């Protein structure tokens, strides 16, 4: 599904290279987790796949379902089926959650969305995530608690139905109960959509107890240094990154 081939990524207008000859292959239905010390390029990777304006791919390519998406726009990537659940979702005052999601659905599907069906789907999603109905009419992410913001990202995921889900520290700022709810919703999405793949960036193995990864990668200096499974994540939690010689 996703082939990242030897990419080098710089910050635009800066010579600093964040990702250095980075490669990763994700097949349909696979769950990959990326861990690593702070400042190793994990979030840069997530944003680069999505096409963030701050980053420039200076070498290599990103292939999604056999299409080279290295230089296409953010919205085109989204419409192809890539979804980035953000670490700190942007607040947009004035635009209501419902208006935003309805517009997004219309743009992604290319069709006018029936209001009744849209509200029904929103209500179902909010119910699953134990979100208050009042969030529909509040400004997008404005004044949301950390937990509400993350749940709102998952609500968007459920409605937009992507093929590749990138989760950038979706577990940060979530209490134990909210983490469980978020993970249950992601898991039920994956059960309903077995071909969907996940790339999960996290600092903590706890989320990996809920969403079982097929692979755990450790990043350092802008590239993957080690790959293993859940046991690798547990070893890092117990003994730190020093124990696997990546620091």
């Amino acid at each position, binding site marked *: 599904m996703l082939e990242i081939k030897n990419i080098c990524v710089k910050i635009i207008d800066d010579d600093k290279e964040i990702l250095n000859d980075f490669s990763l292959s994700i097949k349909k239905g696979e769950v990959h987790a990326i861990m690593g010390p702070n400042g190793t390029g994990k979030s840069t990777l997530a944003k680069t796949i999505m096409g963030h304006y701050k980053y420039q791919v200076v070498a290599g390519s990103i292939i999604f379902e056999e299409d080279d998406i290295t230089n296409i726009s*953010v919205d085109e990537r989204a419409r192809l089926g890539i979804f980035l659940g953000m670490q700190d*979702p942007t607040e947009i005052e004035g635009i209501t959650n419902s208006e*935003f999601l309805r517009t*997004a659905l219309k743009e992604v599907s290319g069709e006018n969305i029936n209001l009744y069906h849209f509200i029904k789907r929103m209500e179902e999603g909010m119910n699953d995530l134990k979100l208050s109905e009042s969030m529909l009419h509040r400004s997008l992410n404005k004044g949301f608690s950390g937990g509400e913001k993350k749940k709102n990202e998952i609500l968007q995921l459920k409605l*937009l139905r992507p093929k590749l889900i990138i989760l950038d520290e979706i577990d940060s700022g979530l209490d134990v109960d909210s983490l469980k709810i978020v993970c249950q919703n992601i898991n039920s999405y994956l059960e309903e959509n077995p071909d969907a793949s996940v790339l999960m960036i996290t600092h903590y193995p706890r989320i990996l107890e809920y969403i079982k990864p097929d692979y755990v990668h450790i990043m350092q200096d802008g590239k993957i240094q080690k790959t293993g499974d859940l046991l690798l994540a547990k070893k890092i939690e117990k003994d730190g990154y020093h124990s696997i010689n990546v620091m």
Partner: protein
Amino acid sequence: MNKIILDKEEVIKIESAKEFVLTEGEKKEIYIWGENDKYKIRYHLEKGSSLIVHHYSINASFDIEIELAGDNARVDYFYSTINYQDQVLKFSIFHTGSKTHSNIINHGVNVKDRKLLFDVNPKVKKNAVGCVCNQENSIINLEDGESMICPNLLIDNYDVISSHSAYIGSFSKEMLFYMMSRGLTEKASYELLMRYFLLQEENIAVERIPRFLEEIKKL
């Protein structure tokens, strides 16, 4: 040339100046529209009265004066403008009564390389205690416009809650990235941002401002 004021009941044609007086305890919500001219509007609010103003304009300058004369008078003012020429919004708010409350929100889009000035001057008088005095000003420059905001606070009393903010620039790239990452095209993202920036309030009677809606779509 349109010179009209819309209120809940009817459309009123006005000249370049207009005065509104709210008597004790009166509550009013009005829609104001102005285009291609200079206007002077004065509001006088007596004790316990409250006023909500939804004010929209295209290529117009306004000299607005609000006097919160009676105790507990309150004004919530939402001003939005689209400009293609040099224009000025001059706002004077006088907190004369105690526990008066002003909430002024000014949003402007400066379309071309022209000058747009928001000059906002709330004044809390010495004997007016317990007042709340807020203002938020934003101008989006679509080209190399020379916009300026003077978000002044002239306060002569210690017992006041007050805030002021000013922003001149473009829509944040981070907002656009977020919206586009959900599949909205850049055009659709701008349209949505522009619409909500200029309409400000979700539950306004948009059918009363067709000319303004039409202009938003052109931006």
